[in-house]
């Protein structure tokens, strides 16, 4: 373990967001290290999606800040980044997997172009190399390579989601944000996607922040869990500790509300 691994990749300090008088989230702090998967769980309206947008610099906080350790090892306040640096993060060092693949894909261009586009954004120009890498990534997310020239409009929901994941991971980001990545998919499709994600995250040593309302998803993917309610963190810790020994009344309610399979 090198000294850099002892520094968190991302730190949030006292993040709050108000939409006028409506609270998004309040005083949320967390840190995330390389290779760590954090699940943010809670019901609709608990503030978890607001938090994800704040952490990924898509929303400006009303208070607090987010620090990120850049590839050069220097930790920066995201609010202080220039536009070019911010773009670099979005195009290269971060991935963002939306619940609806439509929001993360370009639906009218081919699957290969969807993956290749991210590579071109980081300066790759050689068509053959880009196509080879895209093909390789289709394999990794278990999409038949004969579908490389088809547009995602012809894909099923599960395939679209896998394509979105390939598009995000092709630039080898260090941090991936995921907003309900298995939401809206059939159970069998979910299982395949979860298994795929679990393998990729472990193989690539990714750090990830996964927003989900599904505790089974959190159990399978994450090392740590943060439980949110009414915009605030009410409990956090090791995933199995929070799920097997929940301390707060609300967490106990969440855990006890799951039907055993």
């Amino acid at each position: 373990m090198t000294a850099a691994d002892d520094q968190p990749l991302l730190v949030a300090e006292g993040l709050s967001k108000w939409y006028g008088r409506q609270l998004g989230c309040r005083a949320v702090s967390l840190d995330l290290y390389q290779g760590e998967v954090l699940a943010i769980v809670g019901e609709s309206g608990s503030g978890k999606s607001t938090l994800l947008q704040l952490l990924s610099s898509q929303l400006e906080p009303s208070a607090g800040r987010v620090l990120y350790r850049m590839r050069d090892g220097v930790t920066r306040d995201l609010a202080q980044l220039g536009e070019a640096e911010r773009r670099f993060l979005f195009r290269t060092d971060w991935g963002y997997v939306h619940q609806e693949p439509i929001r993360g894909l370009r639906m009218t261009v081919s699957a290969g172009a969807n993956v290749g586009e991210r590579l071109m954004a980081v300066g790759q120009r050689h068509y053959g190399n880009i196509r080879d890498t895209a093909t390789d990534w289709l394999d990794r997310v278990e999409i038949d390579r004969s579908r490389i020239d088809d547009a995602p409009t012809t894909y099923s929901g599960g395939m679209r989601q896998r394509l979105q994941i390939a598009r995000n991971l092709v630039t080898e980001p260090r941090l991936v944000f995921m907003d309900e990545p298995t939401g809206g998919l059939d159970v069998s499709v979910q299982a395949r996607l979860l298994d795929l994600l679990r393998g990729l995250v472990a193989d690539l040593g990714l750090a990830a922040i996964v927003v989900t309302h599904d505790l089974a998803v959190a159990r399978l993917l994450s090392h740590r869990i943060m439980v949110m309610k009414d915009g605030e963190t009410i409990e956090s810790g090791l995933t199995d500790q929070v799920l097997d020994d929940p301390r707060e009344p609300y967490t106990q309610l969440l855990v006890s509300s799951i039907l055993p399979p």
Partner: protein
Amino acid sequence: MTAILEISGASKTFTMHLQGGMKLPVVASVELTVSPGECVVLGGPSGAGKSSILKMIFGSYRCDQGQILLRHHDAMVDVARAQPRQVIALRRHSIGYVTQFLRAVPRVAALDVVAEPLMMVGVARADARVKAGAMLSRLNVAERLWKLPPSTFSGGEQQRVNIARGFLAELPLLLLDEPTASLDAANRKIVVELIREKTLRGTAIVAIVHDDDVRAAIAHRIIDVTGFAAAA
């Protein structure tokens, strides 16, 4: 020899908020020290808190009071107060836990389930798989099953996959919760051999075993946990 595990004054109470805040005491003032190469079996009737103690050592259950010191590389770490990140590191390098049931991951082949802990500590996939195969063979899991996800296996087969996974990595402390519960006599004997080999190599073991023969064969000491009964 310096201890692998030193528990002192450890207590645990569940507060059931959905049952009007009812307090459910589990264990109180647990004292336990385990040295390298020692196999300690926790005794006592069902509900006495044996499994809870294992979960507290592993960090799945929080510990309200006292400390649970665990040897990690050259230092002692208090699991009761460790940060999640430290506990994750402990589980990778210093402590293993074999439960009665396999938490099956969809679609992952039995061979990879077993090989995973080795890969987590940096063993190459091919090497880890060879070792995993050898362990599965030893536990009589037929080779035709290795490529299949264990969720469809019988209870006994799943348990053997779980044991193979738990025993493959060389960790200083191993927690076993009824590792032989659904095994036949021949496989029970193999698990007893595996446990003996582990302790001979210096691994410390804390186990829960209801089978009298197995307990007699592996236990260096039996600790009756009814002595740690929490006052209700």
